[in-house]
Structures are given as C-alpha cells and as structure tokens.
C-alpha cells in the first residue's frame, strides 16, 4: 500500500471490535497493522513506524513498552488508548514518553482527530507519502 500511512496498533485479537472500529475510522488516512507487544517492538525497530497506537487495556506494563518504543524510535508518535482513562495513568504515560493519551470511544473519532493533527503538524501529504520509512 505505497502512498498510504500505515499505523501500527499494539493490541490483541480479543479487542477485535475496537480494532474494526479503528480500522474503519482511520480508513481515510491510512491502513492498520495489528501486532502483539513483542512483535511490535521488533517492527518499530526494523520497519521504523512513526505512528503507533497502544491499547493500554491489553498491555501489561505501558510505561515499559513506551520506553522500549522510544529507545527504538525516539521520533515516533505514540498514542495510548484506554477504556478506563484516569488522570494518574495519563500522567504516568506522558512521563514514560507517550505523545497523547485518549479514551477508547465507540467511534474512535478522538484518535482520528489526534492522528490528523499530527499528520498536519508533520506536514505530510496523505495521498502521496507513506508515514513509515
């Protein structure tokens, strides 16, 4: 899918409904690739994803995962999504290197807004330029 943004989603098959919602919502800007924690860290290093969405409900240790992603790719934009957002977990995520912290809503519009803002900030042309290297 050259010329399209590819997002890396760190989640599990148990979250199938949310993943489908996310896939449909982000369809206008790009495609999604879902991976488990370990695989995702390897992919961030080898493929060099610049936009990563972390499903905090399936990851055991979000700060550790964020630190690992940051170690592999400091410039990556990492969004942490959770079904139960709380201020202290949000603080912990930001201090561990999250770029944003959003709630897993049914329509995923919050993630779309965050991602679109980042695409704009990085000055990317969605139709011609892939987001990953």
């Amino acid at each position, binding site marked *: 899918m050259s010329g399209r943004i590819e997002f890396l989603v760190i989640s599990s098959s148990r979250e199938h409904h949310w993943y489908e919602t996310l896939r449909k919502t982000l369809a206008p800007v790009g495609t999604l690739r879902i991976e488990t924690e370990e695989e995702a860290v390897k992919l961030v290093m080898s493929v060099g994803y610049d936009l990563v969405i972390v499903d905090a409900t399936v990851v055991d240790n979000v700060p550790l995962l964020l630190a690992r992603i940051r*170690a592999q790719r400091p410039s990556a934009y990492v969004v942490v999504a959770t079904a139960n957002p709380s201020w202290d977990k*949000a603080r912990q995520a930001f201090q*561990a290197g999250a*770029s944003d912290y959003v709630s897993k809503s049914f329509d995923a519009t919050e993630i779309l807004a965050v991602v679109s803002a980042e695409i704009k900030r990085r000055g990317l042309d969605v139709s011609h330029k892939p987001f990953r290297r």
Partner: protein
Amino acid sequence: MAKAILLLADNDKEYLGTMCEFLERKGFKVLPAASPKEAKAILDSGSVDMAVLDLRLLNDSDKLDLSGLDVAKQSAVHIPKIILTRWPKYEDVREALGTQLNGVPPAVNFIAKQEGSEALLTAITRTLNLDTKYREVSDHLVAKVSQDHVDARRQATMSYFLSSGVALIGIAIIFLGSYKTTSNLLEVAVTNTLAVIITGAVVRLFFKRADVANDRVDQRYRALIQSQWMDKLMAACEELSLEDNKEKCKQRVIETAANLWFGPEREYRQKRERKWEKANNSDEEMRADSR
C-alpha cells in the same frame, strides 16, 4: 549553593500561604502569585527557576477555568512548570503534558493537591535536578561542539587558502617553465604536465582535509542530538513504577545507544581483527608448507 527560586501561583490564599511557608522551610525562595496576571508578570520577568501553577487560578468552582494552564502555555516556554489542582482529570493532564503545536508541552508534571505537599516537593526537586543536569550536560556539549566547530572551520579555511596558494604556485611554474624552455617543445610539455599533476594532487589533498574538517563538525552535531535523546529516555526510565523495570529500561536504552554510536566502529574493528587472523593463518600455512 544559591537557593532555587520558585513561582507559586494559587488563588486560594490560605493554601498559598501554607505552601509558601512549607517550601521556604525546605530551602526554596518562593515568589507567590494569587492571579494569572501576577503569575504571568513574574514568569515574563524571567526571575524564577521554575513555576508551580494552580489549574483554576480565577475561580475554583468553575469547571471550565483553565487559567493556570493558559499562563503555562503563554509565558516563558523555557521555564519548567508544574500544574497543581484539587480536581484532576485526564483531559487536563493531556492538555498540560501533551505537546503543543510548537512541539513543547506546557508543563513538565501534573500534581493533585490530594497527593500532599511531599509529592509536590518531590516533583519540584526532580524537575530542578533534571533541569540542572540537563542544562549542565547541554552546556558542556554545546561548549565542546562550539570549540570543535571553530577548530574545524579554522582548519577548513587554512586548507582552502593553502590549496589556492599551491594552485597559484602551480600556475607560476607552468608559465616559468614555458618561458624558460621555449626553445625545446618536448621539455615544455613535460614540465607543464608534471606541474599540473603535482598541483592537482596537492590541491586535492588540501580540499580533502577541508572535507574531513566539515565531517567532524557534522559528527559533533549528531552526537549532541543523540545525547539529548538519551537524556530524555533515561528520564523516562526514571518514571517507571517498579525498580526492576527502571533498570531493565535503562539497560536497553544504553545498549541501543551503544549499538547505534559504536556499532560501525566495532564492526570495523572486528573486520580488521578478522583480516589479521586471516593473514596470520596464511603466514603459518606458508611456513608449514616451506618446512
């Protein structure tokens, strides 16, 4: 050591007074502010090392009051700020710690008043320590990079002057050769060709030296940027909840940085060692054959 100067802004006068007293007892010089206007004036004066700003600086009962955060966004980007509130919400944490359009978050930490004065003290101390450490490392690196840049530039300029000088001497030799050997055409051709070859080689050598100097400057800048990333990653590791995780994370950061920085050098060394081993083996084989 000079006392760190803090700005403490809160519209709750009682809380402001108590916290000022507490922080002064802990060795800080505190400048109090009871409104966004006062806080902004102190921040803009640049006289503080860091600021602690209450989220609702105008009206505590107004859920939409984010005046403390607005002050953090609008004033003195270089001064680290902590947002303080009695009503913590994840949306406010996002606003405070998430990056803005300029790529910088308005605040470095977010503390709930319910966490107590010790939590605020820890956050202040950590911010000041990190900030001081960060500044020390950055200043040191910047000084080194600047010095190297000056040296490299001097080297490059000297190389360009020398190459220009050599080129002029070469031209002079060509003309002199032509003048002196006008009677013999073969000698003219030989002299000119030799002069051009020597001049070209020397000029190329000096230009190469200039390129090496420029590469050195590039390398220094790369190292500066990478060390800043490392500093940030180490700070992120410090924030992890379990001690074990902190150590693992730091180890991974150091390993990755070492591979990135020293990987090519290590590969080169290994390649050279393999070459030596190969050479030694072939020597031994030759000796064995001769026997």
